[in-house]
């Protein structure tokens, strides 16, 4: 087990290096001179500009700049912006917002997805099953961009003005966890649909197995057959999907954040690209790649918990 984890972590290193290098090259190619953008409308004194370039290592070759950056990241130093703010400090608040959003989305996704999938599988072939499938088709087809604005209008404005219900804040994060309900659902939308389908197929396959028939035949209560035998054995693909989705949700949050005015990493990245704050841009993507790789590793390790037949050497 320990050796497996170490091997997986070592395998993740080239992927992390490759991804961050790609992003670094892209950021390097962004148009505009970061030092000149720092001055805004005013022109920066050439002597000062040269000094700043030297200070931030902008005169070094690309590969040297990359090495200086990435060797810092491995000891937790994400560098500083041109305004002298530590990138790590800047991240703290922003990542908190995005993580809250992504986790809310993941919880909604798991509850709705597993619930509806289970329901459809148990009502296989009946009209309820078809209704759930039609619903997933609808969920997949409505992009975040559309569902976000529509729910903002319906839940945030119409519900308030027509019915007087003011439960769903639709902008900012002042209302605590409630602020994340609607954005979380919007962000989870497409994923919910895939999870419903996956749960349904996976469970239907398990329900056909011989041991389920045996369990039913020996008079085991229905709930126990489902929980103990069927669900646990259909869980592996679902856990894989949910785990991999955490990274996707965090990376895909930029649109949701823009619609609901949430000040998370997506918004930060967007602003930093315009301001040429290279350290921030590369940092955001580096952390997201790390989240993706770690989530996948944890999912793989969970397999052994769910299915004792799986052993890691």
């Amino acid at each position, binding site marked *: 087990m320990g050796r497996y984890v170490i091997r997986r972590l070592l395998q993740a290193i080239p992927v992390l290096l490759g991804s961050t290098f790609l992003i670094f090259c892209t950021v390097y190619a962004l148009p505009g001179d970061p030092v000149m953008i720092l001055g805004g409308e005013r022109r920066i004194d050439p002597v000062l500009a040269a000094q700043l370039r030297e200070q931030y290592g902008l005169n070094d070759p690309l590969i040297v700049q990359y090495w200086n950056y990435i060797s810092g990241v491995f000891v937790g130093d994400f560098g500083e912006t041109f305004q002298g703010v530590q990138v790590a400090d800047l991240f703290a608040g922003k990542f908190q917002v995005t993580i809250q959003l992504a986790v809310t989305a993941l919880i909604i996704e798991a509850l709705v997805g597993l619930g509806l999938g289970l329901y459809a599988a148990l009502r296989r072939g009946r009209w309820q099953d078809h209704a759930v499938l039609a619903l997933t*088709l609808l969920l997949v*087809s409505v992009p*975040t*961009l559309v569902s976000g604005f529509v729910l903002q209008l319906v839940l945030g404005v119409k519900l308030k003005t027509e019915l007087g219900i003011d439960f769903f804040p639709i902008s900012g994060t002042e209302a605590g966890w409630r602020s994340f309900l609607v954005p979380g659902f919007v962000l989870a939308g497409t994923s919910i649909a895939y999870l419903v389908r996956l749960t349904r197929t996976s469970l239907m396959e398990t329900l056909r197995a011989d041991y389920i028939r045996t369990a039913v035949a020996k008079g085991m209560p229905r709930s126990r057959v489902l929980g103990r035998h069927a669900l646990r054995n259909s869980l592996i693909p679902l856990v894989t999907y949910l785990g991999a989705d955490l990274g996707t949700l965090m990376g895909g949050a930029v649109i949701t954040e823009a619609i609901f005015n949430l000040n998370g990493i997506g918004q930060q990245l967007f602003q930093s690209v315009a301001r040429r704050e290279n350290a921030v841009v590369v940092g955001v*993507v580096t952390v997201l790649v790390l989240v993706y790789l770690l989530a996948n590793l944890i999912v793989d390790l969970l397999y052994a918990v769910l299915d004792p037949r799986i052993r890691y050497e």
Partner: protein
Amino acid sequence: MSELNTAVQEPKAHPRRKQKEKKPNSLWSDAWYDLRRNKVFLVGTAIAILLILMAIMPGVFAPQNPLACNLVDARQGISSEHWFGIDNQGCDTFSRVIHGARISILVGLLTSVVTGLVGGVLGLIAGFYGRWVDVILSRLAEIFFAIPSILGALLLLSAVGRDAAGVWTVVLALAILAWPMVLRIMRAAVITAKSQDYVTAARALGASPFRISVRHILPNAVAPVIVVCTMNLGVFIAGEAALSFLGVGIQSPNISWGLMIADARNRFLMAPEPLIFPAIFLSITVLSFVMIGDAVRDALDPKLR
């Protein structure tokens, strides 16, 4: 739809019953047989054909010039003359929505084709040659796969700059981060096909590696790739809208639904029409391609048979 299909139905009716007929690809004729009878596929295709017609000749559907705008008329509601109202810039929303179909569908189709070709060819090479070729290509794919797609595309397009942004830059930005998915699927299918008897037989007969991979392995491994490419169409269309919404994709005066949504968002709560109608069309377009993708998967995935 029925008019379209009758021509094809006659010569190959009930392909499943005609077992004697020497069809090398029974998977394809079976799939086509299934598709023609699948209501989801027929409805999806009907909507898609309508949208494609709109994309090819928007002038037939939209009576007014989408670029002829009069600021005096800005933000009018729905009327008999302006079916979807008038947007913030005084342009007719209906005409703009119709003209917006072209870029959405073009980006979706091109990105699907590019990812299919790049991922497919590299996946074939990785699966067929195995060993270090496979290791290098698979690792490379992992590197691209680990980058979040919308954020990565946002960065790439920012690096290209707004002046150069257009259909092809959006297609490439989306494709660069999406091809690894196709590679994985193609590689897995090729590895399965490679160990089949007919490949061993072809090799024993002295067929060249190129001939084996193209004539024997490819036709038997391409089905899952077609499935994933069809299913991705909707994802790419939504991706284009998202990037244009963020201001790095298609640029004005070109018309894109994502751009229209971005333009209308500030006054959205007072004047929802200019945002709602492109949003509805975007959803319908994605829906039609998702329906086609679902049906193609059901028809081509042998596991579900």
